[in-house]
């Protein structure tokens, strides 16, 4: 038995006892990854033996059927659901290329509408800075931008009382969708000629939406 095998045995034993370090776990998983190798088979046998001994000691029933192969196959055959529909949208039409390439991440600021009336001549001053916008500046790029809020009152309307379902939404999808609609809108608005290239200026670089996956 090589030094490595010895370490492997110890790691497996530690894993069995729930005392494995990260290194132990990684070593075992690495050995098991080579499914057909002799080491992997030995390890699987050893693991099964350890489990049997443990079961006997606890007075549990020993299971002799090995489900692992079937489980592995089942997992491999399982359809992949985690595909962001936005990516599909973006890749499905050439005309959306702009939106895809300039996915907007406008990560700053909250607009407030109930501001006290003041002279419009302030326009020469700086664009309004909201107190909370600093959070947007320092927050990680993958969080929802400031100014975003789930709306309760708009959640479901014209819905019959018996079918209210509370869907669980992923923040990632919400963020990708928001970026998508903002970019798409910005790419359409330039048709309004008076604004010239202003709507384009609203776009912000972000390699692609898929990078956020």
């Amino acid at each position, binding site marked *: 038995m090589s030094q490595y095998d010895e370490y492997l045995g110890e790691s497996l034993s530690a894993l069995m006892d729930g005392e494995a370090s990260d290194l132990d776990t990684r070593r075992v998983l690495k050995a098991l990854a080579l499914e057909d190798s002799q080491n992997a088979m030995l390890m699987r046998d050893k693991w099964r033996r350890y489990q049997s001994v443990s079961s006997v000691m606890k007075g549990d029933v020993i299971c002799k059927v090995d489900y692992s192969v079937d489980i592995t196959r089942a997992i491999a055959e399982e359809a992949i659901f985690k595909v962001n529909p936005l990516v599909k949208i973006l890749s499905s039409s050439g005309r959306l290329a702009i939106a895809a390439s300039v996915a907007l991440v406008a990560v700053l600021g909250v*607009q407030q509408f109930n501001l006290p009336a003041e002279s419009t001549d302030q326009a020469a001053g700086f664009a309004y800075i909201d107190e909370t916008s600093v959070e947007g500046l320092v927050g990680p790029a993958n969080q929802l931008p400031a100014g975003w809020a*789930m709306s309760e009152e708009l959640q479901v309307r014209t819905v019959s009382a018996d079918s209210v379902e509370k869907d669980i939404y992923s923040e990632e999808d919400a963020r990708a969708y928001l970026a998508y609609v903002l970019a798409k809108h910005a790419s359409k608005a330039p048709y309004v000629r008076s604004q010239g290239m202003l709507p384009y200026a609203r776009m912000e670089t972000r390699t692609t939406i898929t990078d956020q996956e």
Partner: protein
Amino acid sequence: MTAIFVSVPVLAQQSKEAYELVEGMIDASKTLNYSGLVTYEKAGRLKTSKILHLNREDGTFQQLTHLDGPAGQFSWRRTSGDCGLDTTQDKKADLLSTLTSSGFERLKASYTLEIRGQSRVAGREATTLLLKPKDSFRLPYFVAIDNQSNLMLMSVILSLAGKPLERFQFVEIEVGGDLDSMTVGDAELNAEVSCDAGSKPQPLGDWTVGWVPPGFLLTDSEKEPIIGESILSFSDGLSAFTVFIESVRMSKKIPPFTFSQGATAAVSAKLKNEEDEFTVSVVGEIPADAAKKIAQSVSHTSKLLKLP
């Protein structure tokens, strides 16, 4: 009494000047070649970009290069005029036109124009102008127009209470000169917008937007056949908003939300049609209340038919 007699013609004169100024600005953006450095500012953040705008016989070429943050350059060429926007003779002109001659009439119907004085932007003398909405469904604009070229040098979108929400401003601009003879390679293009059938408004299909603020007309619509997303764009000649109606499958992923940043508001709401739940999102440079009202007015055409 004398004051009244004096002020009425003065105001009329001023308003006429303001209209001429805006018309001149529209013409300038269609005919002049210009490039320059611009700043775009909102919510306490400043972004700088370089802009190139060339009008050629075969279309308009536009390029925007980001000078800070992540590097990026975007180029567009719009061929054959303005994709229907200038084709006022077109049968669908009433639906399509934005800020063309007829679009300008709409702008006048929705905003009052007021000259505010003289200013200096990007080292050039400019006239400032306030476009004040006549209702609370759109936002006021404060713009500066170059006295020499008529190009828009600054545009500030204000909240209904008059607070600046975002500002777009040239810091340096070059008009004409070498730009008139400059050639542009196709390799630089990110997107080509042409006026093929695909860019013409499509039938709205199953959905109808029940209410839009007065003066807003449909400028573009498309339906994504694979995922069933409908997109409708509206403009009043100055402001614009886009309505997205997502398929049932897609809607499961999208929470209802409200979002506002700078002058842009986005509202996403759920809409139930029989057993299916759809998502309606409205995004635009309009007040959030208006966006909400628009989102809530969207309905399935089958519902309309059932009405007595």
